[in-house]
């Protein structure tokens, strides 16, 4: 049987391609990677009007077939049939923003000239109408020589018409359509032709994009704008704590009930210890942070979908220029607050190689969501939950401070990197500012579900494995009665070596134990501590079940603060190192990142410990 024909979605950034992709494929999506490069490949199945299935692939948005970044190169290579691991598409859906025809048409003309069957999706026609634009679809279709379908992807309008149009042009998948190489048109000529077609097909009543203008008057105001940005970020970090309290309580309760249930069914012994101390204490202590991670991602997805992210880049450009970067770097860095991996992958939109390298190297300093469990436990245990002002909790404030520390460190690191290992002229800043859009609930929900799945998947595999391994290393060999099990165990002996190194910065034996498996993923530090203290307390009557309570009695405040500082800097995430290796094509830069971040972590934790001790905290 032949595979389903491949249809590719192509278009300028901000044409509404992803919304169209979601509307056509629903939640049946596969996210993978193109071989050799780290460009994300998003594909899904859909049925044409005649019932035939096709595979729809969402290509990275680009302005032309003249690639400036790895992302754009994939788009070019796919549409000319040169991309490794991808068939030549049987047809293209070219997505155009109806409100921005003269610019988007130029790319459409380039794509049509390739000779593949093309349907044009004239997207956001509702916005065009609101702007006072009327577009003559028949005239446009005639001028381009391909079918044109009006769509409103965010409201799933025009999808049937699009599927009907596609059915007429998609072959049976057996005949190969050979695309030529991209025609060597010069951009200016194409642009002028595009503008002529756009002008002929559009009648216009007013030039106003009223809402975007009014919002920008506030969001980009020289004084109000930066304040608004600071407020948004502050609310975001407060919400991570405030909104998650209740759901975290429910998850904790569920895990405690599971432990109790197992405790009553199984007799005390190795199996019960494995389940209660290893599995549930370890994995449970990480899963508990799902609500906080989802809240953080919710904010980032909303900021992206609404169009505000580019405004933030605009406001931050000059500040970023001060450390040799551009506002463009702000978006990957802000994404890195959720996770450095998508953040580092998002640097592919930065065309300047040195800008990009610098951004990659400092991205791990942005406080990612995997640090949240660590911060939350330590803050919960050592920082009193009192209010320091209306709506401002001390715990939230400390958390905010940790984020700020990461940001300041990243800026200083960028400044140094840009003057040493990535020296060079600044690359400048140029970006399209899309209109504001009401985020579509459905698209945000799909994004959140994907994140939740990735997190739970990690908890179920990587974190589970690291936790169980640690449990085994902590449990065996069994200590003779009267001796401390944790110190006697295999893990305890390994940690003893490390302890001599980390003792000067205030770390105890248990921390030395926890930071080894936390190399797999930062959250593991929490599950590791939970497992260590669960085993240590043995099968005695447990007065304090939660890790927070256990830590409170055992660590001094300087130790806790040093531990927090360690996690601001330490590159404890193998996946991030792997992504840096992939993105920079070699071991040089990931090893550099490992080295400089561990040195920073050690120094910062040490300084914090000794300063706090000197202050008598």
């Amino acid at each position, binding site marked *: 049987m032949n595979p389903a024909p491949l249809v590719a979605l192509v278009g300028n950034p901000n044409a509404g391609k992803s919304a169209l992709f979601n509307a056509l494929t629903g939640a049946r999506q596969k996210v993978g990677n193109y071989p050799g490069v780290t460009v994300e490949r998003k594909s899904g199945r859909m049925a044409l009007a005649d019932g035939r299935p096709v595979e729809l692939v969402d290509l990275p948005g680009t*302005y*032309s077939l*003249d690639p*400036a970044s790895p992302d754009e190169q994939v788009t070019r290579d796919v549409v000319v049939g040169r991309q490794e691991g991808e068939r030549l598409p049987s047809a293209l859906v070219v997505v155009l923003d109806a*409100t*921005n*025809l*003269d*610019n988007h048409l*130029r790319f459409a003309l380039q794509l049509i000239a390739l000779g593949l069957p093309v349907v044009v999706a004239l997207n956001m026609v509702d916005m065009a109408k609101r702007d006072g634009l009327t577009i003559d679809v028949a005239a446009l279709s005639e001028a381009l020589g391909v079918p044109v379908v009006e769509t409103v992807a965010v409201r799933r309008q025009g999808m049937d018409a699009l599927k009907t149009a596609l059915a007429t042009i998609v072959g049976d998948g057996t005949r190969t359509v050979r695309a030529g190489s991209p025609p060597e048109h010069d*951009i*200016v000529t194409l*642009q*002028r032709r595009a*503008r002529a077609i756009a002008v002929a097909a559009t009648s216009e009543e007013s030039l106003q994009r009223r809402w*975007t*203008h009014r919002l*920008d008057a506030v969001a*980009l105001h*020289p*004084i109000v*704008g*930066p304040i608004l940005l600071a407020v948004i970020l502050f609310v975001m970090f407060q919400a991570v704590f405030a909104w998650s309290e209740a759901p975290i309580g429910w998850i904790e309760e569920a895990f405690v009930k599971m432990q109790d249930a197992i405790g009553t069914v199984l007799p005390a012994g190795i199996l019960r210890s494995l389940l209660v101390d290893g599995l549930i204490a370890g994995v449970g202590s990480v899963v508990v942070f799902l609500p906080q991670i989802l809240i953080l991602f919710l904010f980032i997805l909303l900021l992206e979908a609404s169009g505000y992210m*580019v405004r933030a*880049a*605009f*406001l931050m*450009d*000059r*500040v970023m*220029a001060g450390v040799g970067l551009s*506002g463009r770097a702000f978006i990957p860095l802000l994404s890195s607050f959720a996770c450095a991996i998508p953040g580092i992958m998002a640097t592919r939109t930065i*065309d*300047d190689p040195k800008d990009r390298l610098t951004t990659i190297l400092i991205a791990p300093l942005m406080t990612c969501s995997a640090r949240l469990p660590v911060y939350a436990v330590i803050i919960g245990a050592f920082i009193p939950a009192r209010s320091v002002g209306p709506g401002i909790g001390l715990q939230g404030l400390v958390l905010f401070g940790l984020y700020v520390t990461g940001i300041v460190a990243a800026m200083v690191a960028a400044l140094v990197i840009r003057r040493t290992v990535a020296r060079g002229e600044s*690359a*400048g*800043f*140029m*970006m*399209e*500012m899309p209109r504001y859009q009401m985020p579509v609930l459905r698209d945000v929900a799909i994004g959140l579900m994907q994140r939740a799945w990735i997190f739970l998947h990690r908890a179920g595999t990587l974190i589970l494995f690291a936790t169980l391994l640690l449990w085994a290393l902590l449990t065996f060999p069994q200590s003779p009665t009267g001796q401390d099990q944790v110190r006697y165990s295999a893990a305890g002996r390994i940690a003893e070596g490390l302890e001599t190194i980390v003792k000067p910065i205030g770390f105890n034996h248990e921390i030395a134990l926890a930071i080894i498996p936390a190399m797999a993923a930062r959250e593991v530090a929490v599950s590791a501590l939970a497992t260590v203290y669960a085993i240590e307390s043995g099968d005695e009557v447990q007065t304090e079940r939660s890790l927070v309570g256990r830590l409170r009695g055992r660590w001094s405040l300087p130790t806790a603060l040093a531990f927090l500082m360690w996690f601001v800097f330490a590159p404890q995430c193998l996946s991030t190192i792997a992504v840096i290796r992939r993105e920079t094509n070699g071991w040089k830069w990931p090893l550099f990142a490992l080295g400089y971040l561990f040195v920073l972590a050690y120094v910062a934790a040490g300084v914090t410990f000794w300063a706090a001790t000197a202050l008598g905290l």
Partner: protein
Amino acid sequence: MRLNELPPHEAATIRVIDWSLLKTSEARRMRELGFDEGVRVETLHRGPVGMDPIACRVGRMTIALRRATAAAVSVDPFPMAAE
């Protein structure tokens, strides 16, 4: 007059762009974003620090760019301020 000197909310037409002042990648990006002779431009916003970068309406798009880049664009202000 150059684009970086154009007062906010005053419309102008691009007279000429001195591509030689720009890096190749920058020049290409500018062409892609619709900068061309005869196109209508208007400065809408200016950044909070040092009034840099600026956000310009170019054709139907709003483009953010640094003042140093905008200096390569010579513009003719409209004789009568339209809006």
